[in-house]
């Protein structure tokens, strides 16, 4: 690991000031992604700002929502009774991610900014536009079985990693960001940026801002949600395809539908067109199959990852069926 300066933040404002002073400085919360990438020299921060002791770890009930502090550990959020009851897809997504040890350390704010598992990003000797803008992309013609098929560009096909963000995208979460002008709320679907011509820009977060919380509103569709994850192993593996789905069903028809996909997008993927297909129709197999087809419209595949189209479609059908029949 390269040398760096270590400083401890005494408050969120202090943290932002300490970060802003040094270009390339990074916050340290749980450390699980940052330390890994610092060892690989993918991350080379001259300064590390320790925010792990800031009082931002609470899960709080508000009138119409739950506010999850950015420093809440993944395992604590998964075990929170309010989250389990009102946002089951989130609890399931968190429990399906990483290992028990990692979930005890990883924080919500850090997890939102987890970096891609693209092997060409994680190994500095390969070309990667995300790591070194303009250098090229060795994944395009490389080993890209795990890579994205939605939201790709000619500059980057790296898959957005992780499970939590996929659930949050389906649940219409808002990311609460503290900056110079106070707090701002960004819908999580706008928090993530498509790679386009600048894959190094991954989120709407500016240097010197700090994620302080994630907020979720109570809603019938969120209560009736679930997370389905398909992967090469039964546990401790990233998704090939994952689905976060929610349905609100009244009088035999779907009134609200939420669908998000993991493992297939360059960002946690919200499938709004597929949701529209499900509106005001009976919750049946035909509707799920149509939604699944629409969700994968526009997929751009490569020979090694073309299997993800059918896998994702089947996963969507299974997840929607599970939501409709299981009720939870």
């Amino acid at each position, binding site marked *: 690991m390269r*040398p760096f300066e270590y400083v401890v933040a005494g408050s969120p404002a202090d943290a932002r000031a300490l970060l802003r002073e040094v270009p390339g400085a990074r916050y340290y919360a749980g450390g699980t992604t940052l330390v890994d990438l610092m060892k690989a020299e993918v991350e080379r921060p001259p300064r590390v700002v320790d925010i792990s002791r800031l009082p931002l770890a609470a899960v709080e009930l508000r009138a119409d929502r739950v506010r999850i502090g950015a420093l809440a550990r993944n395992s604590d959020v998964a075990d929170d009774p309010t989250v389990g009851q009102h946002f089951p897809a989130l609890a399931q997504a968190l429990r399906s991610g990483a290992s*028990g040890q990692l979930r005890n350390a990883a924080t919500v704010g850090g997890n939102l900014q987890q970096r891609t598992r693209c092997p060409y990003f994680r190994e500095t000797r390969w070309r990667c536009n995300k790591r070194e803008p303009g250098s090229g992309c060795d994944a395009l013609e490389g080993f890209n079985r795990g890579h994205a098929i939605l939201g790709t560009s000619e500059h980057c096909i790296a898959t957005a990693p992780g499970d939590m963000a996929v659930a949050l995208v389906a649940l219409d979460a808002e990311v609460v960001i503290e900056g110079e002008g106070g707090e701002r709320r960004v819908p999580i679907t706008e928090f993530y940026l498509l790679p386009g011509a600048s894959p190094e820009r991954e989120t709407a977060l500016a240097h010197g801002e700090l994620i302080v919380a994630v907020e979720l509103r109570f809603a019938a569709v969120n209560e009736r949600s679930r997370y389905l994850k398909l992967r090469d192993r039964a546990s401790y593996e990233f998704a090939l395809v994952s689905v976060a789905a929610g349905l609100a069903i009244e009088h035999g028809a779907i009134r609200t539908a939420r669908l998000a996909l993991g493992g297939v997008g360059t960002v946690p993927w919200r499938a709004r067109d597929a949701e529209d297909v499900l509106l005001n129709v009976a919750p049946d197999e035909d509707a799920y199959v149509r939604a699944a087809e629409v969700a994968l419209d526009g997929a751009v595949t490569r020979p090694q990852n073309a299997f993800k189209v059918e896998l994702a479609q089947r996963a969507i059908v299974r997840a929607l069926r599970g939501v409709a029949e299981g009720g939870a």
Partner: protein
Amino acid sequence: MPPIAPSTAPLTLRLNGRERTFLVEPQVTLLDLIRERAGLPGTKKGCDRGQCGACTVLVNGRRVLSCLALAWPHAGDDVVTIEGLAQNGAPHPVQAAFVEHDALQCGYCTPGQIMSAVGALREGRATDDDAIREAMSGNICRCGAYVNIVAAVRAAREAGA
């Protein structure tokens, strides 16, 4: 800007029940502090990248990977390693169960397996064999002693560990 020279300052934390102070640079991981500075080599450095679980320790009672943590953010924390599990010379029930069920072959992953099992049992996750496999999936055993590891964790749970 040029890299900033590493600074050193005393870092105090509680290690296996004793307050200890170390002089460490910012880039020292919790794992390297435990092994190299505190001289407690029971915690293993397997992959050093958060993939194998051999470096698992308890921090404030919860299992974490010491290789993916810097030491400095753990100032003041309560850290327990495999060397700190036994009480009054008697093995911890999970240690005893691993011996009883022959839950190891080469033994390299064993300290991490045991620390992870202690943490998983405290979390209340090891409720049946499938749950044990899921809860222990962050600990790799290259010898493939998994069947006996599951048996040991099950036995430790039944013994009330």
